[in-house]
Every structure is written in structure tokens, then in C-alpha cells.
């Protein structure tokens, strides 16, 4: 480790920070062109430098990995020591390329998308700041530094969701995201305390080395508790049940933000953290099972909500939650590399979906309701084609990227003897079908058929009305705010007007991402189909060396013994399952085609016949309402009536005010001594002197 070269890894996160600082401090006086140049130059430099680092990393020998660079001691207290340092292994390299690469593309896109918006410099300053924290998060060499990045991306997310802070719903959504995340962060913090108590350190290498020799916990012990707390932290950041509620509201932010932070990078931090802690989780099978269950539930739950959403970005938000659930489930069945693989492909196609959706919204001058779209295929052909690729990718069509990663997860969920179960596979499969359905629903509604002009006063109530309690009590006009927020900003007055294709600065990133969405999955071409699953082999050292002492190591790679028992059968099974999931994807496509293209009146009829189910989905299972009733309102009421009116006003204010009135009363009496008359002063002196004399006489008599 000591012999490995110095990559100056700290340069990677620092570069965007410099960009953020320059734009944040001086940006107000800069022209837009200069702001954009700075905002692009620094992430580009970080990306280029990251590429160089990766090329150097590839030349390291196995013994030099993980590559650790300690910069300086950060905290030293009573035997506990935390350094400021960076950690590079296959996992962080993968994340590094995703974050810098996709991040840079989204920066380019933002230059075009935000061109008409106010606060241009502010936006890019925040965006660069996000990059800094995200890179800190993935490159950190200890949980503590990871936590710094973890909190930092939360801050950047808050700032960017509430970017249009004059809009009430946006400000509310920002707060909601921040507070919800805080709950998870609290659990993460407790998990770290447990680690310190157990192992006295938070450095990855030391913690993992300390855990490795321990026996796998059969029941619920300290390791399980730690892992569960970490997992709660991850559910906050990665929007899993029960803390997912902030993500749909986070769509209030500008679309590039949704793409970068709330789809491609930040929300995957929880997955990354669990994958990073794989040693810990493998020693706590109970926690691992909980992760799998939560992931599976979230996947199918969010997908079912996504079936009926009408806001294009909201539909994608639920899709994101669902896909994150997939990754969670992958981690839960100990298929960490499959989870990270899906994280990577998802970063491509989900960023692409969001950016393309942004392009659609841009083209329509701020319209986000899919019921008012349609027939855009000919009008915005570029957007249509990249969106098509992304849709096929997420729906899991061969040979697009989503197919490989999703299939890998499903296969691992099915085949892993220790951690997997056919139930997970089934849930995953149903979710895949739903995903395919709602994505093609979106596709058909947006690009096919005839343009449906909005009819403002006949709008259905549910979405707007439902959302109101979720984000703010006084939020009745939310729906229209969402729709017209952009309209004003972009300076398009008419909805129908002329639909225009986005400028090249927005299309170029879309095309690059489309290529990525199409081919990124090929690095994970499974062996059952004649590939050799590069990504799995690349990531294997991270997930295998660390878990070698345990028996579960067998379940990691395709080359492990359990496969070789019956290689032929296994391969046949894997192929069959892949066929089944592909068929499911086609079924979703077919249904969507039937419902939203061939016979558009069908959905309404079904919605009427199955009114209860439809309303439940449209209202998102009333989770927001339930949270309000059980958690938010009691806290607000308690704060208002007990803490504010009781403690604050009744005790603290009373004490302070009492001190004030008391001294005022006393001084009201004593100030009368200060009459201003010399003779009264003299009298006081005389009285005082007499007292002193009297006292001395008294002392003299008693001496």
C-alpha cells in the first residue's frame, strides 16, 4: 500500500469546489457565457483527471488495491483518530466514472436548459458544489468522511430542489427532502457510533479487517444492529420505504437537477454505502434479509404508483424509486456487483429519461402533464429517438443496457441459495412488467397519437388535490404551479404555440447518454449468453476478498462452485429466466400499446370499474396523508402547544421577563435615592458614616 503512487486524489473533488466558489462569489457580475464556461470547465477537468486516475489505477497490482491516500490527521481525541483521506478500489472507480461522466454531461445540458432562467450563476454554483460533495462521498476512506459528503449532497439537493424558492411548493419540497433525509442520517450516525464503540475506528480498511474474522451473526447482535442502522440511513438517501416520500416532491427542482441528483447519482449513495459495507452486511444475514425485503417492497410499491401518474417527471420519480428498490434488493440478496451494475446502467438511462423529459417540457413551454402531450414524435425527432432508446433500456429489452443489469439482479435473486428466494425473483419480475408498462405508457402518451391541448377548467382533481397535504397544507394551487412554473420562466406564453426542438447544447448530452444507455450493459454480458460479465469480474475483488472467511463467498461470482455443480442446468435455467423477463417486458409494451395507442378509451373504463384501486394508486396509497396524521401533525401540534406555548412562552420567556420586571421594580424604589439634591446626598453620607461609627462602637464593645 505504501509503495503505491500518489494520485493526488484530492484534486478530483476540489476542482468542482473551486468552480462552485468562483461562480458563487463572483458569478453575479459575470456574463452568462463566463458562468457557463467556469461551471463546465471544472467538472470537465475533474472528469479528465478521473479518467487519468483510472488509467493509472488499472496498472496497480492486486496487492496495491485498495489504494489509500491519507492527507492529514483530521480528528484525534482520546484514542479515536480520523484522517482526511481517500480510498480507491474497483467500486469507487466505477462510481467515480459515473458521477464525473454523467455529471459533466448534465452540466452541459443545463447550460441550454437554464439559459432563460434567473439565478444562473447560483444554479451552477450549487451544481458544482453537489459534484464536490458527491465525489467526497465516493472517494472517502472512512465512514466519517463519507458522512461529510453524505450531508453535503443533502444540502446541495435541498438548495437545488428549492432553487425556484419563490414557488411555495418548491420551498416546501426542499424542506421535506432535507428533513426526511435527516431521519436517515440520524440512524447512520448511530450506526457509526456503534462502529466506533466496537472497533474504535471508522476507516474502511480497519473496520472491514476487524469484522472479517468474526463469525456470521446468527441472530440479532451488534453487527446486525449496526447494519440495520446503516440501512435506515440508506433508505433515507436512496428513497426506500419508509423514507421515500421526499423523492417525488423533489421533482419541483429544475429538470437537470432531477436527472443528476434525484436519479443518477445522489440517490444511489445509499446503494453505494451498503455495497461498500458488504463485509458488515454479510456478517449480519438478518439485516441483509431486511434490505432485500425493503428493496423488493419498494420496487413493486413505487412501480404500482408509477402506473397512474400523469405528471411526466413524477412518473419518472416513482420509476426511480422502483429502480432503486431493485438495487436495494440486489444488495439484499448479496449480489452487490449486480446492484452496482444496475446503478451504472440506471445512471445512464434514467439521466437520459429525465433530460429527454426536460427536453419535452422545454419544447412545450413548461407543460408537464402527459395528458396534454401527444403526437410529438415528428415535432421533436431527436428527443423522441433518445427517449425511445432510454425507454427500451429501462424496460429491459435486449440488447439495451437495462436488460443485462436487471436480468443479473433477477437471476441472482432467484439463484442465490443463501440470501435469495424465488419470491424476490417474482416480485422483481412483476415490477419489471409494471416498469415496462408505465414507461411505454409515458412513451405513447407523449409521442404518439394527437396532441391533446390542455383544458384548464376541466382538469381532474386528484393529482393536485392529493398532493396538497403531501407538500404543504396551504397548497391548493400546486398542480397549476407545477405546470406554469416553467412556462413563465421560459418566456413562452402559449401552450400550444410552436413546439420546438431543443438546442444542440441540450441534444449532444442526450445523444451521448443514449449511446451509453444502449451499450453500457454489454460490459455485463452474462456468461450464459456467451459473454464473460466483465463488470462482475471487475468488481469481484471488492466483494469477494472481504468476504472470503465466510461461507457466503460462494454466492458471488458466476465462476463459483455452486454454479459448476450443474453447469448445463444452470445455464439453461438462466436462459429461461431471461426469456421470461424479456417476455414480461414485451407484455408491458403490448399492454401499453393496447391501452394508450390502440384503444385510448380503455384506461378510463378500467379506472371507472376499478375505482377504489385506481384512486388508491393515484393517491399514492395515501402514504403522505398517513405520515401527516401519525407523525407530522402530532409533532407540529406538540411543538406548537407544548414546546412553544408551554416551554418557550411559559417557562423560558417567563423567566427572562420576570428577571426584567423584578429589577425594574427594585430600581423603581432605589432610584428615589438619586434625588439630585445635594443635601439629601449629604444626609445619606451622614447616615452611612453614622452606621460605620455605630458598627465600630458595637465591635469595640464586643471585642
Amino acid at each position: 500500500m505504501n509503495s503505491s503512487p500518489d494520485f493526488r486524489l484530492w484534486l478530483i473533488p476540489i476542482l468542482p469546489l473551486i468552480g462552485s466558489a468562483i461562480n458563487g462569489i463572483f458569478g453575479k457580475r459575470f456574463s452568462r457565457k463566463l458562468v457557463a464556461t467556469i461551471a463546465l470547465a471544472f467538472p470537465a477537468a475533474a472528469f479528465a483527471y478521473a479518467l487519468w486516475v483510472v488509467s493509472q489505477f488499472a496498472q496497480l497490482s492486486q496487492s496495491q488495491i485498495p489504494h489509500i491516500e491519507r492527507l492529514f490527521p483530521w480528528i484525534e481525541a482520546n484514542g479515536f483518530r480520523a484522517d482526511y483521506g481517500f480510498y480507491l478500489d474497483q467500486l469507487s472507480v466505477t462510481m467515480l466514472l459515473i458521477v464525473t461522466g454523467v455529471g459533466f454531461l448534465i452540466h452541459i445540458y443545463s447550460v441550454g436548459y437554464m439559459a432563460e432562467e434567473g439565478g444562473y450563476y447560483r444554479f451552477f454554483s450549487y451544481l458544482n458544489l453537489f459534484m464536490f460533495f458527491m465525489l467526497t462521498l465516493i472517494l472517502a476512506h472512512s465512514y466519517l468522511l463519507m458522512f461529510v459528503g453524505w450531508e453535503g449532497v443533502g444540502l446541495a439537493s435541498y438548495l437545488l430542489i428549492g432553487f425556484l424558492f419563490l414557488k411555495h411548493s418548491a420551498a416546501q419540497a426542499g424542506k421535506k427532502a432535507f428533513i426526511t433525509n435527516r431521519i436517515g442520517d440520524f440512524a447512520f450516525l448511530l450506526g457509526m457510533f456503534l462502529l466506533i464503540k466496537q472497533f474504535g475506528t471508522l476507516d474502511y480498511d480497519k473496520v472491514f479487517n476487524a469484522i472479517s474474522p468474526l463469525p456470521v451473526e446468527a441472530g440479532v447482535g451488534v453487527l446486525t444492529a449496526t447494519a440495520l442502522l446503516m440501512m435506515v440511513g440508506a433508505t433515507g438517501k436512496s428513497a426506500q420505504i419508509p423514507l421515500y416520500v421526499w423523492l417525488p416532491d423533489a421533482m419541483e427542482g429544475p429538470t437537470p437537477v432531477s436527472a443528476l441528483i434525484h436519479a443518477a447519482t445522489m440517490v444511489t449513495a445509499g446503494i453505494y454505502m451498503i455495497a461498500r459495507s458488504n463485509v458488515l452486511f454479510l456478517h449480519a444475514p438478518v439485516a441483509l434479509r431486511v434490505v432485500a425485503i425493503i428493496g423488493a417492497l419498494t420496487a413493486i410499491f413505487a412501480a404500482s404508483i408509477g402506473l397512474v401518474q400523469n405528471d411526466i417527471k413524477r412518473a419518472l420519480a416513482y420509476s426511480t424509486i422502483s429502480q432503486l428498490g431493485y438495487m436495494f434488493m440486489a444488495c439484499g440478496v448479496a449480489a452487490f456487483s449486480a446492484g452496482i451494475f444496475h446503478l451504472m446502467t440506471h445512471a445512464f438511462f434514467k439521466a437520459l429519461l429525465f433530460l429527454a423529459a426536460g427536453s419535452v417540457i422545454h419544447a412545450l413551454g413548461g407543460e408537464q402533464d402527459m395528458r396534454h402531450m401527444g403526437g410529438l414524435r415528428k415535432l421533436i425527432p431527436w428527443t423522441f429517438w433518445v427517449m425511445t432508446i432510454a425507454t427500451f433500456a429501462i424496460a429491459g429489452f435486449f440488447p439495451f443496457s437495462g436488460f443485462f443489469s436487471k436480468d443479473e439482479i433477477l437471476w441472482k435473486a432467484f439463484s442465490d441459495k443463501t440470501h435469495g428466494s424465488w419470491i424476490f425473483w417474482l416480485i422483481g419480475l412483476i415490477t419489471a412488467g409494471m416498469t415496462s408498462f408505465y414507461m411505454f405508457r409515458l412513451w405513447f402518451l407523449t409521442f404518439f397519437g394527437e396532441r391533446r391541448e390542455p383544458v384548464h377548467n376541466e382538469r381532474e382533481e386528484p393529482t393536485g388535490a392529493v398532493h396538497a397535504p403531501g407538500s404543504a397544507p396551504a397548497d391548493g394551487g400546486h398542480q397549476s404551479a407545477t405546470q406554469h412554473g416553467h412556462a413563465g420562466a421560459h418566456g413562452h406564453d402559449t401552450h400550444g404555440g410552436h413546439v420546438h426542438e431543443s438546442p444542440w447544447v441540450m441534444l449532444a448530452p442526450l445523444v451521448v447518454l443514449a449511446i451509453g444507455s444502449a451499450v453500457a450493459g454489454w460490459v455485463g454480458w452474462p456468461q450464459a449468453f456467451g459473454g464473460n460479465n466483465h463488470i462482475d469480474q471487475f468488481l469481484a475483488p471488492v466483494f469477494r476478498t472481504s468476504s472470503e472467511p465466510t461461507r457466503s463467498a460462494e454466492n458471488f461470482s458466476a465462476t463459483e462452485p455452486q454454479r459448476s455443480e450443474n453447469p448445463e442446468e444452470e445455464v439453461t435455467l438462466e436462459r429461461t429466466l431471461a426469456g421470461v423477463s424479456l417476455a414480461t417486458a414485451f407484455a408491458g409494451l403490448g399492454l401499453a400499446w393496447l391501452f394508450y395507442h390502440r384503444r385510448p378509451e380503455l384506461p378510463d373504463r378500467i379506472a371507472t370499474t376499478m375505482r377504489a384501486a385506481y384512486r388508491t394508486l393515484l393517491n399514492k396509497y395515501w402514504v403522505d396523508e398517513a405520515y401527516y396524521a401519525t407523525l407530522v401533525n402530532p409533532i407540529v401540534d406538540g411543538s406548537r402547544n407544548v414546546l412553544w406555548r408551554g416551554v418557550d412562552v411559559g417557562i423560558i420567556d417567563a423567566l427572562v421577563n420576570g428577571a426584567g420586571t423584578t429589577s425594574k421594580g427594585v430600581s423603581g424604589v432605589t432610584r428615589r435615592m438619586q434625588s439630585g439634591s445635594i443635601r439629601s446626598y449629604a444626609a445619606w453620607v451622614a447616615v452611612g458614616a453614622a452606621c460605620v461609627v455605630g458598627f465600630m462602637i458595637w465591635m469595640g464593645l464586643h471585642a
Partner: protein
Amino acid sequence: MIPLSWYLILGAILFAIGVAAFLVKRNIITIFMSIELMLNAVNLTFVAFASHWHQVSGQVFVFFVMVVAAAEAAVGLAIVLAVFRTRETLNVDYVNLLKL
């Protein structure tokens, strides 16, 4: 030989008269004079003790007191003049600006 206690009693009487005059009188000049009376009552006791104990330091103190009293008279009378010029009265009850 007059006993020491007589001097002390005389000094106490003089001092009490000074205090009483200080408290009762309204004219600044009179008050000033009563201060001088109190100082001299103290001087008398100093001298009496010095003579009684055959110590010179008491007499030295008296010189100091007289010097200070002279300086005080100079400053004090200047203040009285200034007060009279601005307030056109020597009645201390009307010189009561120094209050809340």
C-alpha cells in the same frame, strides 16, 4: 493641664455642628463653611492627640488637611461662582440637575 477628653468632646461638638449645618442650611456658601468647620474639628483632635502622645505626625497631618482645605476652597468657590452665574441662585435645593 486640660485632660484630653475635653479636646475630644469639643472636637465632637464642633463636628456635629458642622454636620447639622451641612444638612440644614440651603445656601451653598454656608454649607461650605460648615465643611470647613468639620475639617477644623478633625484638626483639633489631631493636634490634641499629637500633644498628648508627644507625636509630631498628628501635626503634620493637620498641615496637610489645611493645604487640602485651601485647595478645596479655591476650587469650591470657583464652582460656586459658576453655579451662581448659570443658575442665578445659591440655594442648593434648586441645583438638582444631577438625577435620573
